[in-house]
């Protein structure tokens, strides 16, 4: 996006110069987007500084506290709200007495890392495959599109379970989850990129670039990629929460992160039976997951709107038909 031609501006909606700045300006005008971004920023900060905050509380996410749970009653924490106290700000886990605040923060690391990492992998593969399909020969398009179709049709969760089960236990689990979710979930991005490429390909500014002597690769890089940024960023923003839920599901099914490493999904999985006896234990990870997913979704929606060419152009006349062709 270093030196884009002005020709791309009317179609893609954003002149790439200062595109990011413009996007930021537009997002700033939306309170929902600002709040979402703030929440996400806070979460990332908390996750990054998890050991620091846990130390501030004086707790370790892995230390057992047998004296804080009522062994005779199934291991439910003593005290109210799941054992909230000055030492344990959000209470303790039933059965083990491990500190929930520390576990939630450490869990955020895994959940956020996996969700964002997997999305990055999905975008990378999706854009490459989509571009190749859109620009390549009929044969290449046919093969790549069929592969994409198959991937869409496959039940992702089942495959992910199978894949995570066969990989040796020594392989770092968060990286494995990123790879598995990323490698199985790029089909959506690739379809959008292909469709968009096919549309863009026939437009004048791309044709002009080709006539001016640019090769396929150069055209893709100089003309198509900037124009694809809007839909791809939008789709990625919506994919993050989806991937977070997939990670939760995999950990929930016992093929995610290895215990005792906490993740929100893994916490939810052990919490599921406790919803009546110790509601706090279920509500904390569930609530955090909910807030994060909501924040990502709202932000994703805001980004989509902000990047929408119809929004971008003050002159709304005439742009609608072109983009929807």
């Amino acid at each position: 996006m270093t030196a884009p031609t002005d020709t791309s501006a009317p179609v893609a909606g954003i002149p790439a110069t200062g595109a990011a700045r413009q996007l930021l300006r537009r997002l700033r005008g939306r309170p929902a987007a600002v709040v979402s971004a703030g929440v996400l920023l806070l979460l990332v900060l908390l996750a990054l500084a998890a050991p620091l905050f846990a130390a501030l509380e004086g707790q370790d996410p892995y230390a057992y506290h047998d004296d804080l749970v009522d062994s005779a009653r199934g291991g439910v924490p003593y005290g109210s709200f799941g054992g909230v106290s000055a030492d344990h700000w959000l209470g303790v886990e039933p059965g083990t007495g491990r500190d929930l605040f520390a576990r939630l923060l450490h869990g955020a690391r895994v959940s956020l890392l996996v969700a964002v990492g997997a999305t990055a992998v999905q975008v990378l593969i999706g854009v490459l495959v989509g571009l190749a399909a859109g620009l390549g020969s009929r044969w290449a398009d046919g093969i790549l599109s069929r592969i994409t179709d198959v991937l869409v049709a496959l039940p992702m969760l089942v495959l992910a379970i199978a894949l995570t089960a066969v990989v040796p236990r020594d392989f770092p689990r968060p990286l494995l989850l990123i790879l598995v979710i990323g490698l199985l979930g790029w089909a959506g991005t690739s379809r959008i990129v292909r469709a968009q490429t096919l549309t863009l390909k026939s437009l004048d500014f791309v044709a002009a670039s080709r006539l001016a002597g640019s090769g396929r690769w150069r055209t893709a890089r100089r003309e198509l990629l900037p124009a694809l940024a809007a839909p791809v960023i939008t789709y990625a923003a919506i994919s993050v929460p989806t991937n977070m839920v997939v990670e939760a599901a995999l950990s929930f099914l016992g093929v995610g992160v290895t215990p005792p490493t906490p993740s929100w999904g893994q916490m939810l999985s052990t919490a599921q039976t406790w919803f009546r006896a110790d509601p706090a234990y279920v509500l904390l990870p569930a609530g955090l997951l909910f807030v994060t997913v909501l924040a990502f979704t709202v932000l994703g929606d805001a980004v989509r709107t902000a990047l929408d060419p119809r929004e971008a152009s003050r002159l709304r006349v005439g742009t609608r038909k072109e983009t929807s062709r």
Partner: protein
Amino acid sequence: MRQSSVISRRVAAAAVSLVLATGAAACAGPEDTGAKGGASAGKGAAGGPQKGGTLTVLNSEAQTDFDPARLYTSGGGNVPSLVFRTLTTRNREAGAAGSKVVPDLATDLGRPNKDATEWTYTLKEGLKFEDGTPITSADVKYGIERSFAAELSGGAPYLRDWLVGGDTYEGPYKDKKGLASVVTPDDRTIVFKLKKPEGEFPFVATQTQFAPVPRAKDTGAKYEEHPVSSGPYKVVKNENDGERLVLERNEHWDPKTDEERKAYPDRIDVKAGLDEAVINQRLATSSRSDAAAVTTDTNLGPAELAQIGSDKALAARVGTGRFGFTNYIAFNPKVKPFDNPKVRQAISYAVNRTSVVNAAGGSALAEPATTFLPEQKSFGFTPYDHFPAGKTGDPEKAKALLKEAGFPNGLTVTLLHSTAQNRTTSPEIATAVQEALGKAGITVKLDGQEPNSFNEKRWSVKDAPGFFLSRWGADWPAGGPFLAPIFDGRQIVTNGSNYNHAQLNDPAVNKEIDEINKLTDLQAAAVRWGALDKKIGAQALDVPLFHPVYKRLVGKDIKNVVISDWTGVLDISQVSVK
């Protein structure tokens, strides 16, 4: 005694699941039996038990096997024992009395010859099948022979291992001559000839393979759709491979010949395939037909227990029982560093049984174990604690031992466990062990595997890791089926499922096992099993972690809840709904 892999594979799993699925437990009235292993009782509804009504059974697992040849049960099972009578059966009483074996079809527990290699039984008079034909010793013999047929596999391996010629006999469909080591001199007498002395034979005779099967009615693999009843109920409906069963009274069952089964309800309606949480919720709510409902396979979990804790009325409907079962850490001394007894001892000292028990569901659902044998007299329980870890572990002692063993800076080991959510070999237990060992400088890496590959690994002589979670349940409440498969060197199975995890092959231990098997005085045998357990325990070949406790709800109209130490769960043949 588990040799073939197919059969033996089922043992450990079956010992847990099937025994419980088909097992029974009881709690009779408000009196406390006092004994540690005794059952305390959910009181249930007031008033004496009366005949009549329909008993609903809400289960999670369908009764997919209903052929007496294929069932793997302890003491004849729970629902199956309503339909199948066996030569002997478990005493249907609460607590320790319930771990005794008593006569059922036979007049006594069997008369052994001098060295307990030949057992003779006489059938009671007036025994009839559901169609009114008399039950003869030939029917019992035929039932046993069927269990040798390959298509009807699934039962316990004892008959195959013990009977003369049992290892080569292929069942009545292939071999018309029959099994020569089971002799029926007349219609009421049956004699078993064994390869070696087996003092605990009367316990084996409680299994459903000892139920009579009329040869004329045998339909092979289809027999389970309508097994011919010898007990108080007959099967009138079996839908979806045991998902829905309806049992009604067998008019030809004579209560005068059966002192064990009370058979109060007129009808038993089994509805299986339900979610466990749903079962417990329905029993707790007890609306309409659920008021007269029990479950024969669903325990209360820790969260449900926490929930019930505050509700006195509900707590009164919880039956508590103990089934002979031990969860433990197994070592394979063929793998370093577990060849070093000091390392094994260090781990024994470091274990924190309080957090392990909490991980297993808390003190109401698990009791800390320092012995391999369960804490019941019938097993020969002899208390010992060779490596006293106290309530929460002794990391200092463990560190000292590690230093002596040549690991002054601690060591790193990998613990194999399963990912099943069973709170016995599951991640919760593994992490509790990991936490405690960490304090002693032992870094534990966890290797969680899905249940099938977990079992394949731990039961393999070749691939078994050095350090893993395991468990063992009793086929009957005595020391034999508890200690022999785990510590008898001749039961190391190299090409099948091996339960002798430590691969112990100690001539002295083997000899003692043979000696005890000769005893027909079960109490004397129990004492010696206990002494043997204590002796083997000193070698730190395993770390006993806990014995589970079973808690189950019954519907609000249920009376006469009897929970024995044999099965640890309610005995369905004693329940009344009126």
